[in-house]
């Protein structure tokens, strides 16, 4: 499954995410350094790098879970500033899946999925429930709809979290290490759902160490270290012919066993 890397071909409708000159500090720690990144519609990007390299922080800037101090981020035509209306507009269109699932433990699986459509999109309850069941079907756990998150396995919880995001019909999906908190035997069921989603044409930014996933679905792999984008390339090139020494070192460390 080798799709040509989109940075070579002009995207049909222009980039859906434009990040330019992005700098961010935590206190005096310079966590993101002059990041420039354009993401085309339907593009699937995998971001990898050692811990502390700023990859999570970068995608968390895209839905303003983190504020940035310099540079500009434009998501789906909306520039992120302190304007709460703009931020909410972006968050409505951008779904996020977290490492620790972050399902709402006091609500059933179905209620988790219908909450945002009902309160943010003002979708009627019956319709929201129908949409939720459709997506729960798609992540293959419709039978768990009436259970509470605490009664599910980690893999099931993460699939619910994906379904919950999809219920908002987002244009972009962000994944922040979605399989890092899972037991090994559950990683595959989550990755399968993500592959399925990628094949449906969703724009995806995925922070992960699952290099098999990157090779299978990514249009572009980005390697970050010390708050900067060190290297980016189509997956075949990235894995077989890394350019920078840092990338080579990183790949040798994670692929060696």
């Amino acid at each position, binding site marked *: 499954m080798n799709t040509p890397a989109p940075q070579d071909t002009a995207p049909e409708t222009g980039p859906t995410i434009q990040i330019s000159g992005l700098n961010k500090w935590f206190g005096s720690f310079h966590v993101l350094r002059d990041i420039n990144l354009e993401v085309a519609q339907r593009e699937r990007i995998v971001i990898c790098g050692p811990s502390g390299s700023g990859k999570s922080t970068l995608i968390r800037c895209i*839905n303003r*879970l983190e504020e940035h101090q310099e540079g500009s981020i434009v998501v789906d035509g909306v520039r992120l500033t302190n304007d*709460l209306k703009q931020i*909410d507009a972006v*968050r*409505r269109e*951008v*779904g*996020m899946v*977290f490492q*620790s*699932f*972050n*399902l*709402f*433990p*006091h609500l059933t699986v179905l209620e988790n999925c219908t*909450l*945002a459509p009902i*309160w*943010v999109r003002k979708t009627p309850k019956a319709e929201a429930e129908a949409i939720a069941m459709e997506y729960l079907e798609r992540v293959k756990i419709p039978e768990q709809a009436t259970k*509470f*998150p*605490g*009664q599910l396995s980690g893999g099931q919880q993460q699939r619910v979290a994906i379904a*919950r*995001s999809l219920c*908002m019909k987002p244009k972009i999906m962000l994944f922040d290490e979605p399989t890092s908190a899972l037991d090994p035997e559950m990683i595959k069921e989550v990755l399968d759902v993500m592959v399925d989603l990628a094949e449906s044409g969703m724009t995806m930014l995925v922070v992960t160490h699952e290099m098999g996933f990157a090779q299978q679905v990514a249009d572009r792999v980005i390697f970050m270290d010390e708050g900067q984008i060190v290297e980016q390339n189509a997956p075949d090139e990235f894995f077989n012919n890394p350019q920078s020494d840092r990338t080579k070192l990183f790949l040798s460390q994670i692929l060696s066993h």
Partner: protein
Amino acid sequence: MSIEPFSRAQKDMLGERPPPVTETGTIGWLRANLFSSWGSSLLTLASLYLLWITVPSFFEWAIFEADVTGTTGQDCTGEGACWAWVDQRINQFLYGFYTAGEYWRVNLAALLLIPALLPLLFDGLPHARRLRLFSFAYPFIAAFLLVGGFGLESVPTRSFGGFMLNVTIGLSGIVLSLPIGVLLALGRRSRLPALRMLSVIFIELVRGVPLITLLFTAAILLPMFMPESWSLDLIIRVIVVVTAFSSAYMAEVIRGGLQSIPKGQYEAAMAMGLGYWQSMRLIILPQALKVSIPGIVNTFIGLFKDTTLVFLIGLFDILGIARSLQQNQDWIGNVDTEGFLFTSAFFFVVCFSMSRYSMNLERRLDTTKR
């Protein structure tokens, strides 16, 4: 010496079997809890002996040898308790100095409290929505019934007394202090510095002084400084003070609950586009209040029992009535224990019910099993 080869595989998986009999049932329970060792067996026997010598003699005093008829303390001649006063004084204990002909109004308000509380305490009742409307209207209905006006004969609030006064103050305090406590807790965690400062100042000031000094302030000092025309009814002032006091405690209890909610919950709510109030109402507070239930009910119970302090600013709540009975010439010296025991029973019933309800609520809200 031959060594067993370590390489082997099990053919069949082991099936389940029940635990040993000595671990289950009554005998298992007794062994585990009462006779697990020599020390604990000795303690069990000592406790049984203590119960044996105290419980029967208490019932002998309180019930079997008690005097229940008579018009003064002189009529209580037996060894046991003197309950002769109950018959003539029970109305004072319940209604204070409320006009006898108007007792029905207090009774009706108490009766209506049941349908007002039910939809707040239990889920899934029929007509829940209409009942909840009634719950919101109840405080006004109750105030109208108790105080009067608008066609009902008005009863001055200084006639309020007895247990009805404790319930009036306690219930008002409970109903008001929870939402105010929530707002103060949110204020204390707010990102707006002015709001945060105000909340901290209020909480620390109010929590830093004894309730009784606040009550004295409300009863005696405020009227001295306020213009006459501003004067508020004493009972309203007491309710305000009691509410402020327990709101400060409530705020800290709820803040503890808020702090126990992982950051990821806030982030997930934000990432979905929920606004601040929506996230609080739908995601954060339901979880924070759930973990705060023991502390919240603790504060409620404390508040309810603290209503007896109003006796010190000249109001005759149930404890005040008990004290006046104990000092009454007819009864003096004969009803000291009885008066307190009788009063305690009222508080125990209410507080124990609150405690049981909160345990039930915690079980119902536990979403980890089912």
